[in-house]
């Protein structure tokens, strides 16, 4: 137990410290790199609670794909972040309000079972013990067996959003040369080469 507590405080401390660095670092690339460190430590915290599947998915999705795109964009854009930051203090009250609301909601969710112990009974899908079901299988049960329609609808919403983004950004220009790979592959010597006999001393 002592070892688990040690690792919990290690991960939690690094996660909070690097989350703070995300908003306080001057260089936006550093911010993204600290964000990655935060995700990493969050994955470590997931592992400590036994949610190994969520930990790995957090790494694959957020660190392996989303943060790569963040880094990509931050590196390529030439934004004057000092200028952006100059007016940031005006928004501090709004930020504080949002933070307060989030903190209150988190307390309600986390401490809900302490305020009203009967709330635990309303969970319709009890979490199986780690020994008799790995949490990959348990998540699969919930997502693909009990809530398959909701899960599919969520997927459909994402698909629509993706198609929408493509439609908005796709610019199909007509006046440029395009390659048709199947046409290129289908070319034969008969259609591509013309053999001409040139008489010596004469051009074509």
């Amino acid at each position, binding site marked *: 137990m002592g070892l688990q507590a040690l690792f919990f405080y290690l991960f939690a401390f690094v996660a909070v410290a690097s989350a703070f660095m995300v908003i306080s670092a001057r260089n936006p690339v550093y911010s993204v790199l600290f964000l990655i460190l935060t995700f990493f430590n969050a994955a470590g915290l997931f592992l400590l609670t036994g949610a190994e599947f969520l930990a790995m998915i957090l790494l*694959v999705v957020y660190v392996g794909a989303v943060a790569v795109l963040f880094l990509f964009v931050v*590196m390529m854009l030439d934004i004057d972040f000092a200028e952006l930051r100059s007016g940031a203090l005006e928004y501090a009250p709004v930020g504080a309000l949002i933070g307060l609301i989030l903190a209150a909601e988190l307390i309600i969710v986390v401490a809900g079972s302490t305020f009203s112990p009967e709330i635990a009974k309303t969970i319709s899908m009890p979490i199986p013990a780690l020994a008799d079901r790995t949490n990959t299988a348990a998540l699969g049960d919930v997502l693909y067996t009990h809530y398959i329609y909701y899960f599919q609808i969520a997927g459909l919403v994402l698909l629509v959003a993706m198609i929408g983004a493509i439609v908005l950004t796709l610019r199909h220009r007509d006046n440029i040369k395009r*390659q048709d790979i199947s046409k290129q592959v289908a070319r034969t010597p008969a259609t591509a080469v013309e053999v001409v006999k040139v008489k010596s001393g004469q051009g074509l």
Partner: protein
Amino acid sequence: MDAFISTYVWPAAIMIGQSLLLLVALLIFIAFFLLADRKIWAAVQLRRGPNVVGPFGLFQSFADLLKFVFKEPVIPAGANKAIFLLAPLVSVTLALATWAVIPLNNGWMIANINVGILYVFAISSLEVYGIIMAGWASNSKYPFLGALRSAAQMVSYEVSIGFVIVTVLLCVGSLNLSDIVIAQQDGLGTRLGLPPSFLDWHWISLFPMFIIFFISALAETNRPPFDLPEAESELVAGYMVEYSSAPYMMLMLGEYAAIVLMCSLTTILFMGGWLPPVDVWFLNWVPGIIWFLLKASFVFFMFAMVKAFVPRYRYDQLMRLGWKVFLPLSLAMVVIVAFTLKLMGWA
């Protein structure tokens, strides 16, 4: 005090010992794989390759190591020093960290975790950070272009690698790497009434996936013909341009560790890991690790031959192959495999 030693100190010492053993063995193997790569490439081009240091040039990699370590590391004036030096460390640490879950034989791994394949997938998807950080921190045109290319390339091919892994997982029903190997003890061959043999392994029952995985592994590790991040005719040496001496060596080491990892992963997913090719007594008598090494070396030989044979892709062709060919194909295979397993009652 005794309880403390028996619960914490001994397990920690054993784990550190195992990790050190694996790391040393792995680094020596990578040194020889690097030499093999150069030798195979040379043989295809009718050259001799490295042949001066040691018998047949066998110790060339160690001579290179000494040379890299004793040279002066040059850090460009405009570079971001911290990230410039962090990038090779990230790349080599991540590439070596993945090896903790690779089963070299039945039960031979540092950590036997339930989500082994996801761990490998997660850590290998992080390897792109070493490259992006190296390219950005160099503060120079060619490294930056190389890093952008590699980021797009690795993210694209990870998608199809992910779907290939899903088809294998559908057949196995577990994310544990040892279970994946053990599940290949019976398969297509035993269903046809044959004794357990190499016909049971996934390479034949999931044949198109095997090819897609191999090609995606080439692209994922930036190997030729997909080595566009370091295409020397266009980008000099890509993200490695500004690196010298030990940091350069660590980038190379990270790259080769990732390549050998992909070879081992192909072995585990499709070629039966440590299982002998045919179930006869004298082949069963050979230790499983020998089979594992032979199979991984064979896959590496294919990697090296592809490097020697195939001309480099153009970048748009590479993206087309990833998104328009492999992604639909692997997505369709996931559906087909799932339906087949369900309808035939094999799942």
